[in-house]
C-alpha cells in the first residue's frame, strides 16, 4: 500500500528560483538560506520519495480572476513551468502521478471535500521553487508530483481547521491506494510577508517561530489560528502558512521533527522550513 512517510513545510519565494537559475545560491545574500536547505537536500536524496503531494498556491499564473477553486488537485500526466512574466523557468517539466491523483481526488470527494479537478495547467514558482530547493538542478525531477493548489488570495480562503482536515483525508486516501509507494507531502508558502500597501515588508520572527513550534507539537492547536491572526501578525501574504496545515494534518497527531531552519530576509519575505515524520 502507499504510505505518507514524511512532510515538509517550506517557503516558496520566487527569488530563490532566480538564485538557483542564475547560480547565485552561495553568494553572501543567498548563502545562509541555501545552507539551511543542505541538510534537507541530503535527507530527501536518501528518503527517495516516489511521489510528492505538493501543496501550493497559484499566483495568477494558471488561474486568472475568473475561476477561483478553493482546493484544486492536478490529475494530469505532466505540467510545464509557467511564464510568470520573465519567461518560464528553465527547469524540467513536472511529471504527475495521474493514477494516485485521481484516486486521491475520488477519495476526497467521497470524504465530503468538494475538489476541483485540473487536467492541464502550468505550474508557477509556488510549485517549482520548493522542487529546486530540495532537489537542486537535476535533468529531470527525481519523483512524480501531485499538485494541490489552494486559494489563499481571494477571501475567504479556507480555514486552518479545514486545511488540517483535508490533510487527514489525504492521508486516508493515500493509505487506500493499492500500489506500494513512498509518498511525501509538502506544504509550501510563507512565512511572514506582506507584498502590498504601506505596511509592505512586515516580518515577524517571533510569531513564525511559534508557528514552527506548534507544528512540532503533539496536538492540533495550530489548526485553530484564525485568519485575522495570520494577517495581523505575519502580513497579508503570511496567510499562505495555512497550506502547511494540510501537510501537518496528513502526518497524524504526533510527529518527530527532523530539521528546522529560519532566516530573515529573502526579498520581502521571512524564509523557513521544517521536516517532519509521523511519530510511530
Amino acid at each position: 500500500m502507499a504510505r505518507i512517510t514524511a512532510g515538509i513545510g517550506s517557503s516558496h519565494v520566487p527569488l530563490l528560483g532566480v538564485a538557483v537559475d542564475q547560480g547565485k545560491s552561495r553568494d553572501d545574500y543567498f548563502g545562509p538560506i541555501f545552507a539551511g536547505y543542505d541538510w534537507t537536500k541530503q535527507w530527501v536524496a536518501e528518503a527517495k520519495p516516489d511521489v510528492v503531494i505538493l501543496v501550493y498556491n497559484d499566483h495568477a499564473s494558471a488561474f486568472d480572476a475568473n475561476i477561483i477553486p478553493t482546493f484544486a488537485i492536478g490529475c494530469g500526466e505532466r505540467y510545464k513551468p509557467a511564464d510568470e512574466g520573465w519567461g518560464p523557468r528553465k527547469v524540467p517539466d513536472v511529471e504527475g502521478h495521474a493514477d494516485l491523483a485521481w484516486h486521491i481526488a475520488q477519495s476526497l470527494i467521497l470524504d465530503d471535500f468538494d475538489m476541483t479537478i485540473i487536467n492541464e495547467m502550468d505550474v508557477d514558482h509556488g510549485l517549482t521553487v520548493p522542487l529546486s530547493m530540495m532537489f537542486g538542478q537535476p535533468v529531470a525531477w527525481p519523483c512524480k508530483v501531485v499538485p494541490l493548489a489552494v486559494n489563499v488570495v481571494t477571501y475567504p480562503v479556507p480555514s486552518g481547521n479545514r486545511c488540517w482536515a483535508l490533510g487527514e483525508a489525504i492521508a486516508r486516501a493515500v493509505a487506500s491506494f493499492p500500489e506500494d509507494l513512498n509518498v511525501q507531502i509538502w506544504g509550501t508558502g510563507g512565512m511572514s510577508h506582506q507584498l502590498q500597501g504601506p505596511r509592505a515588508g512586515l516580518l515577524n520572527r517571533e510569531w513564525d517561530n511559534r508557528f514552527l513550534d506548534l507544528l512540532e507539537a503533539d496536538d492540533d492547536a495550530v489548526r485553530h489560528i484564525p485568519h485575522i491572526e495570520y494577517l495581523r501578525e505575519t502580513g497579508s501574504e503570511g496567510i499562505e502558512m495555512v497550506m502547511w496545515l494540510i501537510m501537518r494534518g496528513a502526518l497524524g497527531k504526533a510527529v518527530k521533527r527532523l530539521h528546522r531552519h529560519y532566516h530573515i530576509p529573502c526579498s520581502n519575505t521571512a524564509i523557513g522550513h521544517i521536516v517532519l515524520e509521523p511519530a510511530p
Partner: protein
Amino acid sequence: MSDPAPRQPIHDYLAELEDIPGTRIFTAARARKGYWINQFAMSLMKADNRARFKADERAYLDEWTISEPAKQAVLARDYNALLDLGGNVYFLSKLFSTDGLPFAEAVSTMTDMSWPEYRQMMLDGGRSPQGNRSIKGGY
C-alpha cells in the same frame, strides 16, 4: 480531536479584515470591484499584448471596461490607488514584469520609503508588527 469554536459571524469576520493598517485584504468585494483591472493585468502575460500595451498604453487600456480613475492609476503606476480600486498584487505584478521592475522594488513604491531604504529595512529584519496590527486597537 478538538471541536472548533462556533464560526464567527460573517460581518464580524469581514470587518476585522478592514482593521489592519496600510493593508487591503483581497476580499470578495475588492475582487468584484477590481475584476477587469486584474484581467487587464493578466492579459500582459502574453507577449503580443505586452507589445501592444507598451506601444500605446492608453489605447490598450481603452479596450477594457475599467474606470477612468483606474486607467489613470495604471498610467501613473500608482499601485496603492490600484489596490483601493480592487487590484491584487499578484495580478498587478504582470505590470511590474512588463516594466522590467523587480517585484520587491515595485512593492517598495507602495510604502513611504525609497527602494534603497526599503531594501535596507528588509536587511535589518523587516517592518516590525509593533503598532501595525490593528487600526482600532492601535497595537
